[in-house]
């Protein structure tokens, strides 16, 4: 199966709407909804005409990037490329190689391909941030003349020009031409070759990086790792689901909160109890 120009263009439009922190649809709807591979797979599926298949392909990709934290505007991988290049190409590859979409081999291909196109997204992120300097420059110049209306232009349609050049066009071209190249995979890249084995191993190792990023955002001192090991053990050894593990973790969190409050109470002589309803 190949991706037509119309399909490729639609994927390009989606990548603009979903672009990472400079999203054309804002942070919450763009970056944290449409940008996530699992959510993107619904839209890619509608474009490609196979929602179920695209969701199956996207699941291993989502797991790799489950926790993409971008501290201080530095990104490891902008998911717009994983979502709107990685998913359609992985889907096309699996189809052209006759792989069952929920097989381990398909997961391996999806994971490995997602990891590689993730770097395209990183380039797109910094490229857009660079291009936006032009619009901000225009903005400062107009603000000096007390033309406040310029802010609306700088914040709405001007960055879209950056997106057309850096998201729309590359995503469209890579999908269109990439989908024609996937047919040669089977001959060029036999699965029992050492390099394909390595590629699949990459796909199984990368989720550990995502978890490492996540762990880094919640761990401040080495003893915190005990809670991580505890969570790992209850899920793996005791077979608890994620929601069940959340419930058990919540008990510990609540006990911890009560203990902290108690120690605050003794320190501040009950002053903390006075504003009990003050939460954020």
């Amino acid at each position, binding site marked *: 199966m190949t991706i037509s120009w119309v399909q490729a263009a639609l994927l390009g439009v989606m990548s603009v709407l979903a672009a990472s*922190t*400079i*999203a054309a649809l*804002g*942070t919450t709807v763009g970056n*944290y909804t449409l940008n*996530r591979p699992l*959510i993107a797979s*619904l839209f890619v599926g509608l474009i490609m005409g196979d*929602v179920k298949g695209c969701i199956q392909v996207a699941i291993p990709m989502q797991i790799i990037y*489950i*926790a993409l934290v*971008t501290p201080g*505007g530095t990104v490891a*991988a902008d998911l717009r490329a994983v979502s709107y290049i990685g998913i359609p190409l992985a889907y096309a590859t699996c*189809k052209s190689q*006759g792989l069952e979409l929920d097989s381990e*081999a398909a997961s*391996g291909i999806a994971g490995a391909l997602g*990891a590689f196109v993730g770097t395209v997204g990183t380039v797109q992120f*910094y490229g857009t*941030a660079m291009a936006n*300097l032009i*619009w*901000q420059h225009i*903005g400062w110049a107009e603000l000096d003349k*007390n033309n*406040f209306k310029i802010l609306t232009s700088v*914040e*709405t349609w*001007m960055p879209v020009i950056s997106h057309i050049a850096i998201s729309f066009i590359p995503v469209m071209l890579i999908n269109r031409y990439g989908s024609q190249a996937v047919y040669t995979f089977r001959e060029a890249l036999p699965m029992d070759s050492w390099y394909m*084995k390595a590629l*699949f191993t990459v796909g199984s*190792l*990368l989720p*550990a*990086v995502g*978890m*490492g990023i996540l762990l*880094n955002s919640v*761990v401040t001192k080495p003893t*915190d790792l005990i*809670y991580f090991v*505890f*969570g*790992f*053990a*209850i*899920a793996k050894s005791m077979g*608890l689901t*994620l929601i069940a*593990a*959340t419930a058990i973790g919540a008990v*510990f*969190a609540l006990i*911890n*909160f009560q203990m*902290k409050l108690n120690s*605050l109470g003794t320190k501040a002589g009950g002053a*903390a109890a006075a504003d009990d309803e003050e939460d954020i």
Partner: protein
Amino acid sequence: MSEKRVSKATLNKSFWRWFYGNLTCFTQEHMQTFGYMWSMLPIIQELYPTVEEQAEKLHTYYPFFNTEPQIGSIVVGITAGLEESRANGNAEIDDEMINGIRAGLMGPLAGIGDSLIVGTYIPILLGIALGLCDGGSPLGIFFYIIVWNATSIWFQKTIYNRGYALGGNAVEVIVGDRATALRESAVLLGQVIVGAMAASWVNITTSFNVAGVTLQDKLDGAFPGVLTMLFVLLCWWLMSKKKMSAVKVMLLMIVIAFVGVLLGFFDPGLSYGEDLNI
């Protein structure tokens, strides 16, 4: 002279401008500054009648601003409240005070937002969604779109209004002892969940065996999934203690994969399907 009040409609406009535009024209140079100015403009225009005054007040928001933008909506709310107070002649509020509050809250809020919203809440929702999507059902996707957007918008709107109502007093609510205790407890929950997520979704196995004894069985006999856990801890250690970037850790994993396969430590044992439907 009657007291000036920012109308509900204007506050709404300011909130939605921030919601949409906080990172729209992001650059590495000024980051969220333009989003901030665009959001404050309707408030300034309503409070101050002359263009000269408006230009002067907008100047307050020229300096660099960057935080986790969703939780950061509270800061925009706070400055909306402060600006209203300043327009009513509160002499304590000047550019320096407003920017002191903005600069003082950026860091702590980014920490809270990154670890709790992006690092814990979103992965939990995605985790539930992944479970619901098992086998290719879109149910989990609908679940995520609705629950994430509804709760996130409600949260952002609430803290914006809270910030507006409290003005400068909001600072204590955010960085006070109680808030710190709550945050630390929520982070503890996050630590347990990350462990459970690693166990559920990462699966690293070795094919290494000596004289019929497979290493994987021995390891799992001691602590199920211990190899997976060690790899996650290795990635964490490299990033937190060795200060390696996530990109470098990814590259290192690629090297480990290649070397591991050549040494016979890793072997995914996959093959292409037989039925080609080209």
